[in-house]
């Protein structure tokens, strides 16, 4: 009996201490804090720099991650489609180049030039912005409204591999809902992606 009690207690303690850390950050409905990060053109960019917008499509992405690469064109397309409707894309590279050299600021500049990024591609050099948002992977999207309220968190769509077989364009439908004055549904999705590489 004592043994059983001990096992139960040990099991409980084990779970109490080993339960994995849940990533913190914004949930839908939270107000995002503005930031000031360096763009690939060398200028500092904040959300408040954008005038007359209805919201922001904040995309944590990077150079090296194959999933981010699969979505690169779709991120460009999102900006082209929604910038004039008031929803520009703001891309942020959260990775430490100490861990992934391909994600250095110079490499970001190269990539933005080669692929002619039409949006700001910012460097979270101190790695303070992505934890605030609670971004955990690349790509990871946060759609905000004009008041910086987080309205959608998650994936761009449901098919990374083949853009022709997409069934749900999550970000597009979130932005379309907001343009109509509705709440996005779904407002939270999960997807496979690369972990954000944090400097220890």
């Amino acid at each position, binding site marked *: 009996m*004592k*043994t059983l009690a*001990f*096992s139960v207690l*040990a*099991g409980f303690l*084990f*779970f109490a201490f*080993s*339960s*994995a*850390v*849940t*990533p913190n950050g914004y949930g839908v409905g939270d107000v995002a804090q503005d930031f000031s990060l360096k763009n690939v053109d060398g200028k500092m960019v904040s959300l408040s720099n954008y005038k007359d917008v209805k919201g922001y499509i904040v995309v944590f992405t990077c150079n*090296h991650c*194959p*999933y981010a690469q699969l979505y690169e064109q779709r991120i460009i397309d999102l900006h082209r489609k929604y910038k004039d409707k008031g929803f520009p894309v703001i891309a942020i590279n959260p990775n430490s180049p100490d861990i*992934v050299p391909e994600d250095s600021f110079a490499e970001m500049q190269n990539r933005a030039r080669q692929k002619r990024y039409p949006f700001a591609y910012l460097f979270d050099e101190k790695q303070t912005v992505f934890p605030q948002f609670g971004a*955990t*992977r690349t790509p*990871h999207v946060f759609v905000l409204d004009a008041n910086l309220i987080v309205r959608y968190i*998650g*994936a761009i769509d*449901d*098919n990374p*591999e083949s853009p022709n077989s997409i069934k749900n364009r999550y970000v597009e439908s979130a932005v379309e809902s907001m343009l109509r004055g509705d709440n996005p549904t*779904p407002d939270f*999705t*999960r*997807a*496979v*992606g*690369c*972990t*954000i*590489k944090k400097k220890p």
Partner: protein
Amino acid sequence: MKPFVPYRLRLLLILLACFLALPSLSAQSAKLTVFDSLSQLEARINQAGNATIVVNFWATWCKPCIEELPSFEELRSRYANQNVQVILVSLDFKSHIEKKLIPFLKLQKLQSEVILLADQDANSWIPRVFEAWDGAIPATLVVKGPKRVFNFGQFNAYSDLESFVRPFIADSSTTISTQHMLDFGTGK
């Protein structure tokens, strides 16, 4: 079920079915199975009974995943006789099996069981693995019966992985050693 099929033919059919179930992969490296739905992986885990199942989610394109694969191989070889099973769940695309996954498995000579999970509905299957997981890899799930723990991200060293898994393996021996301690305490 088919009593008139001779035994040897039945054996042959079973063997043939086994081969058909596997993509062309030589016997020298890991066994590769393709699951189109998470339910198949859940069934695989459930059939393990009282074994400790260590499920690592990885992909050939994921650098930190590849870095930690040797730790899982080591765990498998060290604890195979203690009812520990390692399953490496690849999230590579199905279209990359021949081109990328199989050459990788051959090159690395992985011995653990490898399952390619090609469930297209990521938004649904990811939280079924672990509610708080959002899909970033690497990630590792340890299951023993009804108990499960989850590790977000990479294990820095083999010892980290081992200490994460060991409480599950030591389950019965902890009880035994407590018994010893109690016995010792009574002066027996």
